[in-house]
C-alpha cells in the first residue's frame, strides 16, 4: 500500500511553481480577451489542470488507492448530472406569451 507516499521537498516546490505559473497564465488570458466560447474554455481548462495537479500531487491521489480517486470522480460526475439535467429544463423553456 502506497498510502504513506513521501514526496521530496523539491518535488512539492515544483508543483507549487507550476500552479503559480498557471495562475499567471490564466490572468494573462483574461487580458487577451479571447472571443466568447474560447474565453470560458481557456480559463476553465487552466482551472481544471490546476485542480488536477493539486489533487494528484498535493493530495497524493497519483499514488493512492484507486478508490479514493474514484470517489473524487463520482462527486464530479454527480455534479455534472445535477447541472446537466437541470439545464435541460432551464435552457429549453418555451413560455407562452399572452395575446392581449
Amino acid at each position, binding site marked *: 500500500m502506497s498510502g504513506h507516499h513521501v514526496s521530496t521537498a523539491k518535488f512539492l516546490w515544483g508543483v507549487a511553481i507550476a500552479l503559480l505559473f498557471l495562475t499567471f497564465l490564466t490572468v494573462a488570458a483574461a487580458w487577451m480577451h479571447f472571443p466568447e466560447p474560447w474565453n470560458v474554455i481557456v480559463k476553465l481548462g487552466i482551472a481544471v489542470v490546476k485542480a488536477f495537479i493539486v489533487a494528484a500531487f498535493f493530495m497524493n491521489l497519483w499514488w493512492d488507492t484507486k478508490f479514493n480517486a474514484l470517489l473524487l470522480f463520482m462527486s464530479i460526475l454527480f455534479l455534472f448530472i445535477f447541472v446537466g439535467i437541470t439545464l435541460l429544463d432551464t435552457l429549453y*423553456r418555451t*413560455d*407562452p*406569451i*399572452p*395575446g*392581449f
Partner: protein
Amino acid sequence: MNRLFDFMLPPEKSTTAGEVDALFHFITEVSLILLLGITAVMLYFAFKYRRKSEDETTPLITHNNTLEITWSVIPLILVLIVFSWGYQGYLAKTNPPDDAYEIRAVATSWLWQFHYQNGHVSTNELHVPANRPVRIIMSSDDVIHSFYVPDYRVKMDVLPNRYTQVWFEATEPGESVLYCAEYCGTAHSDMLADVIVHTQEDFELWLETGDAIDEDLSPAELGEQLVQRQGCMACHSTDGTVLQGPSFLGAFGRDRELTDGTTVTIDENYIRQSLLEPNTQVAAGFQPIMPSYAASLNDRQIDAIIEYLKTLEE
C-alpha cells in the same frame, strides 16, 4: 366504454380526456394481472414448500440467466410502451391548436380571476364555449398555484414570474370544478372555481352582458350573491370569525384602525376604495394581500356589495 376501473375516473368532459383514460385503464389492468399473478405464485410457493421438518436442507439454485433476462426484458418492453403512450398524450395535451380561444387567468391567494379579450373579468368563474379549443394563459400574483380541472384531465402550475398555459376543448355545455392543486396556504382548499361551459351563442351573449341573473334582485341580495361568488368569503367571514381579513359582521359604520396608525370610519367610500385599491388602506393586524376588483366589478355591483354589508349588523 365499460371498463373495470371506470369508477376510478371522473366523467370525460374534454376531447383529450379519453386518451388519458385509455392509458390509465391499460396500466391499471396490466398491473392488476401482474399483481395477482405474482401474489398467487408467492402464496402457492409458501403453501407448496412449507417447512416439514426442522433440519431440511434445500437445493442450491443460484441463478438462471434465461429466466432473469426474460423478466428484465418483458417489463422493459411494457414500460417503453407506457412511456411512449404517455408522451404522445402529453404532447397532445400541451400543444394548443392555433385557433384556440385565449383567456387570461390570474391566481391570487386564494381566488381566481379570468380576463377575457373584451376586457370582461370574472372571479372564481371560468366561462368557456363548448366545442372550441380554449387556451388559458396563466400567471400568479404571489405564490405558486395550480390550475386543475379533473373533468378535463388538465393541470398546470401557475407561477409568479412566468406565464404558463393549459388548453382544453369542452365537449358539452355544463359545469365542472376547478381546483387549486398546489399548496398555497390557509385557504388553499377553498380556492375552487366553477368552469361554466356555454354553447357558442350563449358564450357570446355572456361576454356582452355578463351575468344576467342580477336583473331582478334587490341590491342587498345581489351584494350577497357577489360576496359569495367573487371569492370574498375565503378571507372575510360574515359571522364574526377573523380569517385572513377582518369579518364583515357589524363592520359598516364602525371606526377602523389602519396599519399606518390612522383611523377611518367604514363608510361607502372606504368600501369602494377597498375594492378598487385594496392595499392603500389596510386594517391594522392584517397583511396587504387583497387583489383589486377594479376590472371585475361595475358601479352597480359595488353599490350592491355596500348595501349588503350594511345589512350585516351584529
